[in-house]
């Protein structure tokens, strides 16, 4: 058992907890939501926010600036690609004739 000792480690742990929460929320959305469009919404927003929290937690505990810059560049790349992929998948699903889910389909 190694509990967080310093203030920085407690801050990191709080960011990790938030990151784990958003990751779990995103994948529960992926499992529970009714169609492709709603699942895209859960996945591309909640998961990237979770990744951002995890990366911020790692950056707080990191001891070199190069590592911090690299971590945030990875996050930037993931955000850009996930926004693009979200548009591409939604556009392909829409143009292939998949209708969005409506409340009366329940």
């Amino acid at each position: 058992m190694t509990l967080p000792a310093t203030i920085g480690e407690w801050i990191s742990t709080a960011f990790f907890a938030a990151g784990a929460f958003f990751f779990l929320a995103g994948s529960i959305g992926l499992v529970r939501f009714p169609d492709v469009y709603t699942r895209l919404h859960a996945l591309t927003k909640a998961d990237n926010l979770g990744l951002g929290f995890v990366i911020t937690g790692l950056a707080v505990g990191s001891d070199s600036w190069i590592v911090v810059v690299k971590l945030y560049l990875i996050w930037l790349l993931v955000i850009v690609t996930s926004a693009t992929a979200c548009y591409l998948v939604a556009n392909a699903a829409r143009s292939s004739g998949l209708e969005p889910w409506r409340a009366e389909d329940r």
Partner: protein
Amino acid sequence: MTLALEILAFAIMVTVALGIYRIERGPTGADRMLAAMLFGTSGVALTLVLAEIAGLGSLRDMALVFALLGALTSVSFVKRAWGAER
């Protein structure tokens, strides 16, 4: 500190397990692709966490490669696989 990182790694692996359930259920190819995108994001996070636990800086470059490959897979899915399966 390692304990918090290990719990975080476990939570990320739980999200991967939930993604496997979505791949199994489908119903369309796009739903399976979404689970693959989830694996991309979770893979990046998991690799970064493991880099911190193991103290291996080179794993961060691996995470960067995962992020790049995630972009390529979804583009190639939309361009190639989606049209072919219908």
